[in-house]
């Protein structure tokens, strides 16, 4: 009732002052609006306090931490191996890449060389994970803006790859397949066949996604020229991945600091021009094609060989030996009860995950546990630029903007 009254009084012309008939006064004031934490398009539990002037965003303050679990503290309590399953829960959409980034960081700390075949397997699975991540992003982003169809198409194809993961390691999302010094197990011939089939099946489907969106005038209107950030600002904010490349900076760690099997593959890094949401979309779609290319090359180049480095003081023995060989059993037991002895020192190792640079800063004082482990989560850093990028846009663009970072709160809040 009160609300009704207010509305009528504000817009009504005051009869005692007839001159106000020509100049009706509209009540203007700044409005605070809570977006989230339960909003369906915030991809988890993100709250943003929006200061509005009409429908324009004047200032937006992200309120983070609803999914904070203290992962960095937990890391200090467990051995290096025990932290791998925790990394799955960072960016729970793309667990493989988190495993990868973490294992690489620990290998850098230990100065451990991974066998060739393991490097290829890692690259293949990481690129499969990149495809899954981009499909998830594409579907969810389009859904947020109202283009619902492409969501179903993306998730239909994503399902194939998740089933492939299921067959590979027994889990669809929380995979924990990478190990320090290699990977948990080799690809079976069946899995390789399935992957090859998928590679033939997939590229026409990417074109399908593109047709759905790039011919959709509403979707184009809501992405082109929205959330523009200049290259200079993007670099200054520390953005990475497609969010940075959309602004025309070709920063990609796969090229800048090549690792794993990437230097042996030929692929290009798509770079945008305008720094808007559409360019970030375009980069992700082009990366889908590039990922397919990388996987193809890896499958061709891959030779037979071990999938785990043979350094008994660090790497796990093969499961078959654990049950038949006493020394291997002791090795397994010691690695899991005490962990391996890492040398004292500190390293930072960044990996190009599909969201951006996922880095681990590890301080070791020797012993089996990290002394300090810091996660450089791209989602968190991207949220830092949200206020800057959202000013002046409409409320409905807010979802587009943080959607365009591909924000996952598990990683953002850690």
């Amino acid at each position, binding site marked *: 009732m009160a609300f009704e009254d207010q509305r009528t009084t504000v817009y009504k012309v005051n009869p005692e002052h007839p001159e106000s008939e020509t100049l009706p006064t509209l009540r203007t004031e700044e409005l605070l609006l809570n977006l989230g934490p339960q909003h369906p398009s915030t991809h988890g539990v993100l709250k943003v306090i929006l200061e509005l002037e009409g429908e324009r965003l004047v200032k937006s303050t992200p309120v*983070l*931490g609803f999914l*904070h679990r*203290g992962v*960095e*503290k*937990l890391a*200090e*309590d467990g051995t290096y191996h025990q932290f791998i399953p925790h990394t799955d829960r960072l960016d729970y959409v793309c667990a493989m890449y988190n495993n990868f980034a973490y294992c690489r960081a620990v290998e*850098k*700390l230990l*100065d451990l060389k991974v066998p060739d075949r393991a490097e290829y397997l890692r690259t293949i699975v990481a690129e499969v994970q990149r495809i899954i991540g981009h499909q998830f992003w594409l579907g969810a982003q389009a859904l947020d803006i109202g283009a619902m169809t492409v969501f179903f198409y993306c998730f239909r194809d994503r399902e194939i790859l998740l089933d492939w993961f299921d067959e590979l390691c027994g889990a669809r999302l929380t995979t924990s397949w990478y190990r320090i010094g290699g990977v948990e197990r080799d690809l079976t011939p069946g899995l390789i066949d399935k992957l090859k089939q998928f590679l033939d099946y997939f590229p026409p489907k990417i074109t399908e996604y593109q047709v759905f969106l790039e011919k959709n005038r509403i979707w184009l209107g809501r992405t082109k020229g929205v959330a523009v950030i200049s290259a200079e*600002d993007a*670099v*200054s*904010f*520390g*953005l990475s991945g497609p969010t940075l490349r959309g602004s025309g*900076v070709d*920063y990609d760690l796969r090229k*800048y600091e090549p690792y794993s099997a990437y230097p042996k593959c030929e692929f290009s890094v798509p770079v945008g021009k305008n720094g808007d949401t559409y360019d970030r979309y375009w980069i992700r779609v082009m990366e889908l094609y590039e990922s397919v290319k990388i996987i193809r090359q890896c499958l061709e180049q891959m030779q037979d060989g071990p999938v785990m480095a043979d350094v008994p003081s660090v790497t796990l023995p093969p499961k078959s030996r654990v049950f038949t060989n006493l020394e291997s059993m002791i090795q397994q037991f010691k690695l899991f009860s005490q962990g391996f002895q890492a040398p004292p*020192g*500190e*390293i*930072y190792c*960044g990996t190009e995950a599909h969201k951006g*640079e996922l*880095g681990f*800063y590890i*301080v070791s004082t020797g012993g089996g546990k990290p*002394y*300090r482990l*810091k996660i*450089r989560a791209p989602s*968190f*850093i991207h*949220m*830092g*630029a949200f206020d*800057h990028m959202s000013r002046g846009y409409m409320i409905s663009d807010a979802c587009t903007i943080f959607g365009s970072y591909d924000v996952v709160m598990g990683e953002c*809040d*850690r």
Partner: protein
Amino acid sequence: MHQLARRIEESFSVGFLGAMEWRGDVAVTVTRDALHEVAKFLRYEPGMDFDYIVHVSSVDWPDDEERFEVVWEFYSIRKRHRIRLKTRVPESDCVVDSLTDLWKGADFMEREVYDMMGIRFRNHPDLRRILLPDDFTEGYPLRKDFPLRGKGWRDTFEFLDEVPR
């Protein structure tokens, strides 16, 4: 010594405390007073040109006189080199200069360090807790004297009684 570290030593003979290179990472330790000047040098000096901030972090060394170590990591996209900048602060006065005026991304990263380790950043525009709630009273969880399971704040939450069946 790495040439980047040597250049910093040449330019800041007073503030420079040491440099280390390990596993290809270059880390430079400077005094707290020289921190902002060194950071400015890293940002704008043409030979340095560190335009990209990678992360801000902190390490707790409870037995040391200067207990906290604040760590910045920078990258130069044009020159493609990396450096880690470190400084130490004592517990009684754990304040360092904020680098938000040089790298915009330092804003959230420094807030996280404040939230987790209790290090305050001078001239930071909005130094509030970021991941933990504003009314969190237990202290700073990544300090080494903070117990893994917390200090019992969660036990004080009021829960609704279970409805008897």
